[in-house]
């Protein structure tokens, strides 16, 4: 008897005996075949050792607790709706934060581009000598990198949180209907070791570059404005009372 023949016969016999979760039972026997086949047995040998499908099917009895499960399932669904509603609002808000941070990264890049190329649309950037602006521009490129790394990590973290939440949903439903549950997932994103290393490297380098360029830009600005509060010397923020 082949595997398919055995399983079909068993399924028919189980149906005949009105066994409710025949699928579950069949999957156990299918798994048995898979293990034995991996050990090098032939399908006919395995089927012979398993026993006659009709005799096996006769040994299964129906569990008489269908109705109790129905009630528990219903309360579980109600409970899950009440936990999932606030959870999905929080997730939506966190994704909005991701979008805001992405926009910030784009703004930093744009600002850096303008400063380095010497562009100033509608005089939106306060006036300063080109070299001061260029150094600040470099620091903003670094800041943009840092933000992008942060966005990537935050997205991975959010994705993992959502998976944890859906696993919780799945397990709650499985437990309510008497099915086996899956192990809960860890809350931290399971990034590959290499990805994590690359991200950390990027973050550290861009943080360092940002700090160095920003401080350097301040120093150069102070020197060229001959004043510690160079922003006052250049009349930024509409304040001209200084000096």
């Amino acid at each position, binding site marked *: 008897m082949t595997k398919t023949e055995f399983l079909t016969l068993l399924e028919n016999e189980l149906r005949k005996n009105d066994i409710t979760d025949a699928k579950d039972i069949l999957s156990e026997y299918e798994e048995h075949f898979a293990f034995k086949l991996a050990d090098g047995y032939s399908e006919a040998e395995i089927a012979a050792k398993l026993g006659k499908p009709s005799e*096996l099917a006769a040994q299964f009895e129906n569990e008489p607790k269908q109705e109790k499960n129905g009630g528990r399932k219903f309360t579980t669904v109600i409970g899950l709706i009440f936990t999932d509603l606030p959870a999905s609002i929080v997730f939506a808000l966190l994704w909005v934060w991701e979008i805001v941070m992405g926009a910030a990264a784009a703004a930093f890049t744009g600002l850096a581009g303008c400063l380095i190329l010497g562009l100033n649309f509608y005089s939106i950037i306060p006036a300063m000598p080109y070299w001061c602006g260029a150094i600040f521009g470099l620091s903003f490129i670094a800041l943009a990198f840092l933000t992008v790394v942060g966005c990537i990590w935050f997205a991975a973290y959010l994705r993992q949180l959502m998976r944890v939440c859906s696993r919780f949903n799945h397990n709650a439903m499985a437990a309510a209907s008497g099915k086996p549950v899956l192990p809960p997932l860890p809350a931290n994103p399971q990034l590959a070791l290499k990805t994590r290393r690359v991200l950390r490297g990027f973050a550290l380098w861009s943080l360092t570059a940002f700090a160095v360029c920003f401080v350097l830009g301040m120093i150069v600005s102070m020197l060229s404005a001959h004043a510690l509060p160079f922003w006052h010397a250049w009349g930024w923020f509409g304040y001209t009372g200084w000096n």
Partner: protein
Amino acid sequence: MIYTGNRKRRAYVNTQYKKGVLELCVLSLLKKRDCYGYEISEYLSDHIDIADGTVYPILRKLKSDGLLTTYLQEESGGPPRKYYSLSDLGKETYEKDKAEYLSFAKTIETLLEDDEHDEN
């Protein structure tokens, strides 16, 4: 496999009385550690001459009686496996049934030995 009528009947009787103690054997294995279905089937067929397929109805019955719980464990490179674990009720039942069975087996042993002495 070709059985004569008599052998077939004897095999059936053997199966029936083995099945009674099989539940106890499954519980004793699961008391040591959690196992998936195939492991239990292999363990039993290593020690007791019984059709491989018999263990699955037993597992299902023990589960619906509340002696076992199941959970899925993800294995590397394959679908998740269903593991069986002894519930508190299962542990209790195992200890009780074990004591009962051992005292029963002792009685039977004494009876059978008495029988031998009488014959001699």
